[in-house]
């Protein structure tokens, strides 16, 4: 789960990481008064769950409260398209109005789980404010990676090493070390999958400050972070994806017209690949899971059918834990309730497959049965013509 910059900065503040003075605004008037309160100038920052805002007009410097109001008027209610959002963009419902910062130096700091050493790693770079993927491919030597032992946690000698790597002035070294140590606590105590500050700045008067803030949380840890769940903003989620996630169904919206329902994530990815290889394009990834009931299968089918892109449906069930008769019942239920006539290709294997096919066969649905993945791909292709 991603959270907004202003929320991440709230978290940072709780851990003693300095952030610029900022006020959240949801109307042009609020942006105006916030800017007045900050001394008549501010930076207006669109709050969306995607990076690349700066280059896309989502971060603007304003020189007066009136200008803040005008900029806010344009931003609020619009969608911001950045290289990370996709063509439809992300809706701007809130702005963070921040004081101007006196930037002397820009650094990059991040914490993530490094699969290589199977533990957390902190990344620091003097190339703050840049696209870090670009730095990583063009100047990898500019990024220092510090692997951390999860049992001992990040040790003070490691923060000192990173401060040295950053070549910081001794006058700010201890302040910077404190920020790095605080960031590690943020990462661990909130079960983050990513914490990123880009840029972490040194101000003209020698203070260290997080000018931006990004936090992604581990979805699997939310059972012990009820407080962080309140940060969820469904306006930033794809509506079908958030509907599916509430039903505990793994779903990702894609661009094609073949709605896919599969049990198991690996088989679901494989089904998308086979569909693509047949020259058709999947509309979604959907893993209905192992222990599904007819109601859950039905909800999953309804999510697929409610997607206006979907012109044909491919069901691929390798029955092990999920019984084929349960899948059949769920599919019929969804078609009956929605009155849909979208044609479907059904491939079922394994437990109770005869019963599953009988339920579907007797239902009168426009269904084509197939036995193998190859046949499934061919059948989907033929539905098109």
């Amino acid at each position, binding site marked *: 789960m991603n959270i907004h910059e202003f929320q991440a900065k709230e978290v940072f503040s709780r851990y003693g990481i300095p952030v610029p003075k900022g006020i959240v605004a949801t109307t042009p008037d609020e942006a105006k008064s916030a800017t007045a309160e900050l001394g008549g100038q501010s930076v207006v920052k669109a709050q969306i769950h995607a990076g690349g805002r700066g280059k896309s007009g989502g971060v603007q410097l304003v020189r007066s409260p009136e200008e803040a109001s005008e900029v806010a008027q344009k931003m609020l209610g619009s969608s911001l398209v950045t290289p*990370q959002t996709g063509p439809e963009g992300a809706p701007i419902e809130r702005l963070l109005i921040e004081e101007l910062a006196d930037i002397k130096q820009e650094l990059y700091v991040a914490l993530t*789980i490094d*699969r*290589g050493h*199977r*533990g*957390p790693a902190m990344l620091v770079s003097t190339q703050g404010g840049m696209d870090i*993927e670009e730095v*990583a*491919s063009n100047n990898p030597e500019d990024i220092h990676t510090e692997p951390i*032992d*999860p*049992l001992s946690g990040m040790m003070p000698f490691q923060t000192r090493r990173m401060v040295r790597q950053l070549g910081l002035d001794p006058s700010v070294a201890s302040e910077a070390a404190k920020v790095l140590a605080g960031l590690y606590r943020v990462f*661990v105590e909130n*079960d983050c*999958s990513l914490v990123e500050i880009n840029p972490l700045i040194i101000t003209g008067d020698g203070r260290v400050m997080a000018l931006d803030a990004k936090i992604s949380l*581990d*979805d*699997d*840890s939310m*059972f*012990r972070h009820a407080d962080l769940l309140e940060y969820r903003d469904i306006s930033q989620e794809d509506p079908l994806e958030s509907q599916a996630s509430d039903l505990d169904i*793994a779903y*990702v919206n*894609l661009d094609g017209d073949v709605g896919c329902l*599969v*049990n*198991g*994530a*690996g*088989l*679901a*990815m*494989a*089904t*998308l*690949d*086979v*569909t*693509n*290889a047949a020259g058709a394009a*999947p509309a979604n*990834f959907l*893993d209905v899971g*192992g*222990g599904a009931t007819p109601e859950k299968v039905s909800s999953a089918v309804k999510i697929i059918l409610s997607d206006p892109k979907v012109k044909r449906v491919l069901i691929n069930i*390798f*029955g*092990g*834990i999920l019984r084929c008769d349960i899948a059949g019942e769920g599919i019929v239920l969804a078609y009956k309730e929605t009155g849909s006539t979208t044609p479907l290709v059904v491939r079922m*294997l*394994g*437990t109770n497959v005869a019963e599953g096919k009988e339920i579907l066969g007797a239902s009168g649905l426009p269904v084509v049965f197939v036995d*193998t*993945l*190859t046949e499934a*791909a061919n059948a989907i292709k033929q539905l098109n013509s």
Partner: protein
Amino acid sequence: MGVLVDETTRVMVQGITGKEGSFHARGCLAYGTNVVAGVTPGKGGTTFDEKVPVFNSVEEAVAETQANMSLIFVPPPFAPDAIAESADAGIPLIACITEGVPVQDMVKIYRYIQDKPTRLIGPNCPGLINPGAKCKIGIMPGAIHLPGRVGVLSRSGTLTYEAVGQLTALGLGQSSCVGIGGDPIIGTNFVDILRLFDADPETDAVVMIGEIGGTMEQDAAAFIKSDFSKPVAALVVGASAPPGKRMGHAGAIITGESARAEFKIAALRDSGAWIIPTPADIGTTAQEMLTSKGLVS
């Protein structure tokens, strides 16, 4: 033979009295697996299905039954503790089926078991099966398997069944099938299992199924190129996945160029592995490979 498990494996099921645990413990027993103990704290002294004694702790279960493997079905908040308890008791092999263990718990557990005599498979995995030894330790449908000489290795559950189904349909039996799990942090990786298949006299060739996320397939490719003596057919799924989206498995997410399917496939092609063009071609590619090597007629 086969790898990791066989007729001598004595299985203890942690979480045997739960919904998932009891269902799959029955499945393992029905396949012929030697399930010798169950563990559920608070339910010690009872008997599961009038066959399997249930204990309050791993320590007691091991002392009473000489269990030498643990199969874990404990819910995510408690799974790390279950793994640690088995490792502490000196259990040499653990398969953790549980999906949804927080990543930061797993990094600690991974470190914890490093100085224990324990190999962990998973979490978020289907388990492992040795069809020739009638030993199924996990949630896979046993009936699709056929004893034979192909090793199957995968990050996925149902896609492994798909692979096995295609092999069996062509009469290509399996020596062992190991699902290593779909999480970003897992106890045993591709290279670990490839090493075991390399040493196993009953395995002639390997079918390896990778997916997007991480760089484990590249590590496997490097190992295949330099150290692996048997033919490998490899598939990588997830070419259609958009970056930054978790495709069901917590570990199946593209977070950088090297996590993409095309980079993994390129590395595996360079290693000399037979590339399986689409998931529909697993069985046929394996058959071509085995035929060209003279391993089937």
